[in-house]
């Protein structure tokens, strides 16, 4: 009976942890059957991220952009819209910020002020990106998934356009921008790692998201709208404006993410393809059940899996892409409403039987 109670109470958590464990075990199976030296590959995958200080901090560094995109997606999903623009917004914001920091603005702007200004610009760029599909959807009911996936391609090409024609450094052999102004960059926190002050901004973003959604009137409106639009109308909430606001903030968070990533980790702008952080952000938000408080943990988990896979990819004979498969499987399991449903049902029946006897 105690176990039944436990199962019913923590069912979501049990489901998610089971999905992660299944995904993880599958990853081991993948490695085991594919590698010529399976034990080493498995060891590298699990322990690799802890093998050195640099690698350990790589996980945290990767979690920073993932946090921004998943928090952005959290806003989109909270209001019930599959607005996937965080992918493109993240990239375009990075490009615009890099252009400003490398070419357009004088490098002499004082430190602190310079990055702060750029991050605000990034937020605005992202906000604009979130606004467009939101408007198209609210005004004309254009399918937001297809529209945003298409717009993501447009934004990607807009970014490479900026790179190629506005800030390309022709003195280097690869396709890259001029060097970013030193004053614009976010400081590295720890010697021997790339961990930068952006982590504080990321933490602030988590707190902001939690606070905004749970502790403000606007966040309340977003949650009601996402949960039951008819009810939102019935209690007098302006449904269209909460949809717009949520998607603008979601876009802005992605924009800040793009800016922080560029200013924290890069000397030049180098992105020529979609980063994929937006889709990973979607997966993180889904796995965290859209709870801002849970997002950091899931983001760290995904970063850990990704870094582990990267190390496996570079040091062994297994391609790192297997981790995408694993991440997808975890999400598929969590999204399947009926996954493990029989367990819950049995527990509920057992409980109700016991309660019946007591009565």
């Amino acid at each position: 009976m105690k176990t039944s109670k436990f199962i019913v109470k923590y069912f979501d958590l049990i489901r998610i942890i089971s999905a992660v464990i299944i995904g993880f075990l599958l990853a081991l199976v993948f490695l085991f059957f594919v590698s010529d030296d399976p034990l080493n590959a498995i060891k590298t995958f699990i322990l690799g991220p802890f093998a050195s200080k640099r690698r350990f901090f790589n996980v945290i560094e990767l979690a920073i952009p993932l946090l921004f995109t998943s928090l952005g997606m959290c806003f989109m999903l909270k209001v019930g819209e599959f607005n996937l623009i965080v992918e493109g917004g993240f990239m375009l914001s990075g490009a615009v910020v890099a252009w400003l920091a490398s070419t357009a603005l004088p490098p002499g702007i004082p430190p602190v002020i310079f990055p702060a200004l750029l991050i605000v610009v990034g937020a605005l760029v992202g906000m604009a990106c979130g606004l467009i599909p939101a408007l198209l959807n609210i005004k004309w009911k254009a399918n937001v998934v297809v529209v945003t996936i298409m717009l993501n391609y447009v934004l990607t090409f807009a970014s490479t356009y900026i790179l190629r024609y506005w800030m390309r450094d022709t003195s280097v052999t690869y396709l890259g921008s001029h060097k970013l102004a030193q004053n614009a960059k976010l400081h590295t926190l720890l010697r021997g790692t790339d961990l930068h002050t952006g982590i504080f901004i990321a933490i602030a973003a988590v707190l902001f998201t939690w606070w905004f959604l749970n502790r403000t009137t606007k966040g309340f409106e977003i949650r009601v709208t996402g949960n039951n639009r008819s009810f939102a109308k019935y209690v007098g909430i302006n449904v269209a404006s909460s949809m717009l606001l949520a998607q603008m903030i979601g876009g802005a968070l992605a924009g800040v993410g793009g800016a922080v990533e560029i200013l924290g980790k890069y000397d030049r702008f180098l992105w020529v393809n979609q980063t994929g952080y937006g889709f990973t952000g979607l997966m993180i938000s889904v796995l965290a059940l859209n709870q801002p408080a849970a997002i950091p943990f899931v983001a760290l988990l995904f970063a850990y899996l990704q870094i582990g896979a990267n190390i496996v990819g570079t040091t062994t004979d297994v391609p790192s892409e297997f981790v995408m498969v694993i991440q997808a499987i975890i999400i598929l399991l969590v999204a399947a409403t009926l996954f493990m449903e029989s367990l819950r049902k049995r527990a509920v029946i057992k409980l109700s039987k016991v309660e019946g006897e007591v009565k």
Partner: protein
Amino acid sequence: MVQMEEQILLMDNITVIYPNGFAANKNVRLACNRGSIHALLGENGAGKTTLMKVLFGSITPTEGQIYLKGKPIQFRDSLDAIQHGVGMVHQHFMLVDELTVAENLVLGMEPKKRGLFDFDAAVKITDEIAKKYNFEIDARAIVGDCSVAVKQKLEILKALLRGAEILILDEPTAVLTPQEISELFVELKKLRDMNHTIVFISHKLNEVKSLCDSFTILRNGQVVDVGRIDDFTEQELSNLMVGRQVSFEISKDAPKSEGRELLRVQNLHYTNYEGKQLLKDVSFSLTDGRILGVAGVEGNGQNELSEIITGLRRFSKGDITIDGSSIKNRTVRQIRRLGVGSISEDRMTYGCAPNMSVRDNIIADRYFTGKYSKGIRLDIKAIQKDTNALIKQFDVACPSPDSMAGMLSGGNIQKIIAAREFSSDSKIIIANQPTRGIDVGSSEFIHSQLIKMTREKGASVLLISADLNELIKLSDSIIVMYNGEITAYFEDASKVTDVELGEYMLGVKKMSTEEIGRALQQ
């Protein structure tokens, strides 16, 4: 020569108890003769729908047996019922609007030619069966373009094509014009003459009188009377349908009204997009401290009325004022700020956000007020304090204020809604079916709260209910709605009997314009 009457259908001793313990049918017996039209009468919630679901195979009865042509039978599902010759015309048509009449008719049993669907054959089948039963119908028309009457014919033909000998019609006239109704009756009588059996569900007694041969009346899930239509007057049938039920007592003081008019509805008209006029020249007023009951069979304009007053729908003509201010062109929130609270009849769609906490559901109409927020910041302490008090006051049984509302029982969700709508400083409560489908304890609680609102707080309540007992016991005055119009006004609800109300609700009687006009304060 007198033909022996053959009993084609017998539903014997049917009892249906739903999982929540509600007994919708208790030892019901329904018998129909071949070649007759049998009326199944009863108020909303009397158990007619449940009984027909049993007959159509969508519910397995807890007890009882169905006999078809004398043989016991049990239907696995609706398909099984169809195959045994039972057809049903649902109130909401089961038609694909985008397809043609012929395609709808043969769906699931499509004729085939060289592996493909043979549309011409389908048209032929349609024409043949239409001719056989003397129905006029255009096989090639798109169903969505057809009138409601044609759609209904198509539904009947669908059942006939599948070999229906027994045809259940669930309130078929509710959606038809008088001309269409008489046409339908001609066709139904023809079907009867062709030896089909029809179970006819209706609230409109004049129709029943003119069409049916025999009747069964259900009340509270039990059969109250069976007989031949010709032996009873409309009046008598009406009395049997709404006769007194196991009653409950409500103690309430006399209204302490200062005569302040809080709600005034004047010459209200509403026409929906299909051009159907759903509210016609509705006028009434409601003063402080009083409960005005709105009686009527469902679908006679009550829902539209409540949605218009709360701002969810825009009205076509007329005016509504709340404590002197017109609600024309006001948003839902503005109307709520004028002091309107409402309980919607559709609890899960309009009443709550099921995946949000009990607390969030309670504050959903006031989170933005100065009491609970500063700027955009919510004052969680104030919210917690007040919601905890309300949960206690309104006796909401939930594991914690943070539990999801959707996890609770219907009665508890209704209490959450009451906690929200009754605790804001509402001057007017629109209570639309406030106790439908909830347990006795919860509904008693809601009743006492409604009385408290008016007697202690001086608010007024517009109570829309299909439950006549509730209506008579709670209301100070009552208006009756029929076909979108007010057909009766009773100044003193305590002097009305349910029998009397029933006559107006079922369209047997209508008061004079002058009498009805007294509902509006001059």
